[in-house]
């Protein structure tokens, strides 16, 4: 149950936050929120010894057993890594945000969304059931949308939120389709069961489509090329959110899914090619574009895109291990996945610290544009320390953890280049080349962060404010992170043994033992190719950084109208145009037209059903005797109905309509249905009053000015509807296509304890229908109320649709 608790706790707290905020105005809400991730972290940390011994824990809560959907949590090495990241970085981010956000902001909203996200993200990584995973997955998209649009008075925030929502949710829907295909193949939603069954099913026709769909979901979420365009725009969110969602956790959900489903899909080489190539392109494109950014956050966003590509490509390379016989010489192929997990941790530490660093600068200097920054080293020495350690780690330099994982990445890239089992050597030879080029650009933008911000003159800084070092509260979190950056460099094997090793078992279940797949991480392994590559990166990086102004122009070679962002905007604008055009075709604002559509549809559907199933019946044999007063009543109603057509005023028409209604209730009395008669009577009275009230809104009663043809169409449809209703009500007496349901209600008194069968049906047998009807009625009431209260005044624009 502990893991369920870990997911429920943030969600529960998210629901309570608005009330606590309103009731206790004195307390600082952030400190209360901080308790949640800390509790979750401690809960999870207690499982580390168990998990590191290679064991797993499953807990099942039966949710919808009839649909095979259970809320099963699965705690293993992989979900442990993510769980610790989510709660650990979450705690630091909440702490940081207490000092970052002013108390005047809508803090209850902020923390509510943040906790919502935390719970959803924990749900994604701990769910064993694909459907539950999907639900939480979309919830992370929604909470991310809310957090990006936190400052919703800004146009850019809203645009960024919409973009991220559109891209990640469309990907999510593709993923849902993929999950359903997996279900169709294996008849299970449980990830563990699917993994067990999958090796036998790789030749299924749905295998490749399922893979593509799932990857679409993973790529959109993890901002892989060409879906990465949402991430830089998402930087409009408050910086704690960027540090948390858009670098450390949410964007890694896609990577989680790829890692988790590697044992499902890796048996086919398509997986290797797609994941590796997309990852490498993203790695290169992200680092290449980061260099041209002038906004520090945008630069970090592109760098995140690039680093996510790196991790993605590593998982792609790691999937090659499924295509070789594992022994001492080929175990090296699993090292790519190890490097991926290792870099995942490292990236969260240094990128989190860097984001917080940028947040501090933005907070103190009021800008994060590198053209207006400079010389901050002496003013903000502590922030400078964070920036240097974070950037150096990102650039892959010792003595920081980024160096270790970067070296392992280069090792894996070189290994893939040697991979010759499928005679792919010519194509895979490109892998280390791209990796190296991207590393050079990574080095350049790391230099930009340090030198453009902290060195040079202070002249360009905004002069209107006194810039000073950040308060201690804002420095704690980034310092904790940079502490890990250094600590992991000196003790990487502690991390490897307790955290990373069990996760390898999740990526390669049953492939080899845990200790075999966990390499000993060395900081120094002699002058090998990887080290020479790193030295090359540093040398070339410095040269290119020094000559940046000379080659900057290559960024202008792609014209603005051919960029991905422009394509996205064009598609969106065109989509809006087309849908507005189609909507305006039929949403005319005329009630008469809408009635025509509805009645036309009724004739089409009901009429054709009865016609095609050949169930129109009419027979007089079994009918009861018809009395004179019944005939008279019918005549009165008919005359009233026809007279309504020729009425000269609204009042006359209403009264005539009332005559028809009261006639019907008389019929109910005659046929001994007092319930119905009573209801009909009251409804008739109330609606008559309602009609009379509405007259003030209606235009004066005028003769119709429509064309003759239009009138004929209306008349035809009206007569057809009338005929249809008569024919259907006569036919239902002889209708036997469905099972009758009256037998269900025979024992009404014993089952429901009521003698009034109508009410036992309403209140007991079909209470669910009644309940929803009540809800619908209430919604309709609110609808009428708002339509009247907020209706457009005369002279306003038309807001019909």
């Amino acid at each position, binding site marked *: 149950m502990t893991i369920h608790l870990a997911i429920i706790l943030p969600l529960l707290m998210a629901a309570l936050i608005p009330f606590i905020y309103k009731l206790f105005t004195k307390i600082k809400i952030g400190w209360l929120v901080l308790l949640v991730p800390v509790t979750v972290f401690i809960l999870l940390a207690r499982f580390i010894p168990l998990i590191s011994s290679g064991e797993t824990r499953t807990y099942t809560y039966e949710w919808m057993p009839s649909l095979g959907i259970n809320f099963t949590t699965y705690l293993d090495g992989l979900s442990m890594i993510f769980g610790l990241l989510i709660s650990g970085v979450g705690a630091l981010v909440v702490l940081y945000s207490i000092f970052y956000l002013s108390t005047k902001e809508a803090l209850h909203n902020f923390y509510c969304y943040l906790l919502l996200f935390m719970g959803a993200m924990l749900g994604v990584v701990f769910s064993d059931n694909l459907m539950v995973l999907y639900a939480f997955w979309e919830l992370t998209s929604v909470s991310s949308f809310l957090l990006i649009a936190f400052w919703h008075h800004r146009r850019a925030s809203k645009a960024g939120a919409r973009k991220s929502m559109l891209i990640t949710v469309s990907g999510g829907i593709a993923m849902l389709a993929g999950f359903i295909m997996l279900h169709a193949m294996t008849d299970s939603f449980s990830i563990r069961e699917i993994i067990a069954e999958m090796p036998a099913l790789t030749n299924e026709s749905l295998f490749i489509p399922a893979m593509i769909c799932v990857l679409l979901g993973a790529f959109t979420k993890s901002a892989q090329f060409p879906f990465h365009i949402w991430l830089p725009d998402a930087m409009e969110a408050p910086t704690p959110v960027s540090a948390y969602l858009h670098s450390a956790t949410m964007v890694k959900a896609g990577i989680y899914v790829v890692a988790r489903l590697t044992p499902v899909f890796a048996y086919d080489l398509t997986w290797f090619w797609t994941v590796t190539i997309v990852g490498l392109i993203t790695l290169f494109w992200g680092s290449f574009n980061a260099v041209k950014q002038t906004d520090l956050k945008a630069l970090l966003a592109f760098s995140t895109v690039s680093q996510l590509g790196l991790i993605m490509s590593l998982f792609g390379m790691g999937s090659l291990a499924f295509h070789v016989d594992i022994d001492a010489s080929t175990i090296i192929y699993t090292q790519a996945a190890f490097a991926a997990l290792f870099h995942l941790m490292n990236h969260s530490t240094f990128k989190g610290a860097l984001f917080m660093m940028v947040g501090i600068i933005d907070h103190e200097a009021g800008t994060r544009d590198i053209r207006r920054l400079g010389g901050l080293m002496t003013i903000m020495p502590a922030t400078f320390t964070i920036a240097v350690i974070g950037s150096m780690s990102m650039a892959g330099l010792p003595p920081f953890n980024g160096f270790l994982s970067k070296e392992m990445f280069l090792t894996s890239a070189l290994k893939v280049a040697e991979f010759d089992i499928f005679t792919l050597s010519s194509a895979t030879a490109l892998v280390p080349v791209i990796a190296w080029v991207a590393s050079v650009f990574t080095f350049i933008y790391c230099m930009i962060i340090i030198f453009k911000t902290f060195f040079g003159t202070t002249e360009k800084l905004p002069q209107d404010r006194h810039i000073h070092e950040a308060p201690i509260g804002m420095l704690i979190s980034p310092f904790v992170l940079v502490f890990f950056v250094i600590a992991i460099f000196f003790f990487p094997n502690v991390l490897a043994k307790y955290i990373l090793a069990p996760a390898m078992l999740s990526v390669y279940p049953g492939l080899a033992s845990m200790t075999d797949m966990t390499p000993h991480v060395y900081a120094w392994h002699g002058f090998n190719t990887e080290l020479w590559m790193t030295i090359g990166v540093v040398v070339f990086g410095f040269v290119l950084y020094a000559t940046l102004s000379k080659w900057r122009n290559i960024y202008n070679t792609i014209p603005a109208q051919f960029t991905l962002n422009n394509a996205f905007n064009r598609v969106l604008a065109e989509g809006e145009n087309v849908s507005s055009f189609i909507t305006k075709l039929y949403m005319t604002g005329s009630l008469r037209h809408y009635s025509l559509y509805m009645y036309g549809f009724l004739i089409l559907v009901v009429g054709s059903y009865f016609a095609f199933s050949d169930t129109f019946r009419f027979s007089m044999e079994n009918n009861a005797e018809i009395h004179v007063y019944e005939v008279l009543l019918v005549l009165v109603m008919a005359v009233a109905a026809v007279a309504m057509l020729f009425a000269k005023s609204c009042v006359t028409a209403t009264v005539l309509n009332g005559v028809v209604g009261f006639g019907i209730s008389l019929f109910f009395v005659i046929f001994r249905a*007092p*319930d119905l008669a*009573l*209801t009909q009577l*009251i*409804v008739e*009275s*109330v609606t008559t*009053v*309602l009609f009379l*009230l*509405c007259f*003030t*809104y209606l235009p004066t009663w005028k003769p119709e000015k429509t064309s003759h043809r239009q009138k004929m169409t209306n008349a035809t449809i009206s007569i057809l509807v009338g005929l249809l209703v008569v024919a259907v009500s006569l036919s239902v007496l002889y209708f036997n296509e469905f099972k009758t349901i009256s037998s269900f209600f025979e024992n009404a008194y014993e089952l*429901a*304890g*009521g*003698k*009034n069968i*109508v*009410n*036992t049906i*309403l*209140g*007991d047998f079909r*209470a*669910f229908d*009644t*309940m929803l009807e*009540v*809800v619908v*009625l*209430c919604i*309709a*009431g*609110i609808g*009428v*109320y708002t339509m*009247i*209260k907020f*209706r457009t005044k005369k002279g306003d624009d038309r807001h019909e649709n």
Partner: protein
Amino acid sequence: MRINDVILRTVVRFVVFIILTLAIYLFFAGHYSPGGGFIGGLVIASAFVLLYVTFDIEKVKKGIPVDFKKVAALGVFLAVGTGFGSVLFGVDFLTQAAKKFHIPLLGEKELGTVMLFELGVALTVVGVVMTIIVSIAEGDGD
């Protein structure tokens, strides 16, 4: 033109109470004979409508200071709440229960959760009908 409606005003004062009594009777009678939450609610609503038609809206508002939107919301809450209430007792959603009680003066009577459910229906009907009618009547001027 002034309409002389003294008779209407006088009669309505009494009739409204008769209608309301009937409504309450219908509401409780529903389990065994014609009536029930929906009809009960409608009858209450029609009594109020009669008041609004006879007297002006301001006067009735002073007499019945109720926000009908909240009545509707309370009704929906009751109807859905009884559904979830049964879940809390470990039985399926919307399961109704009943028990016989001895009530002073009234004798042996059966009380069931279905009554709460019907009360929810009735309140929703009153709330929605009145919200619609009052807002249409009020929205007239502006």
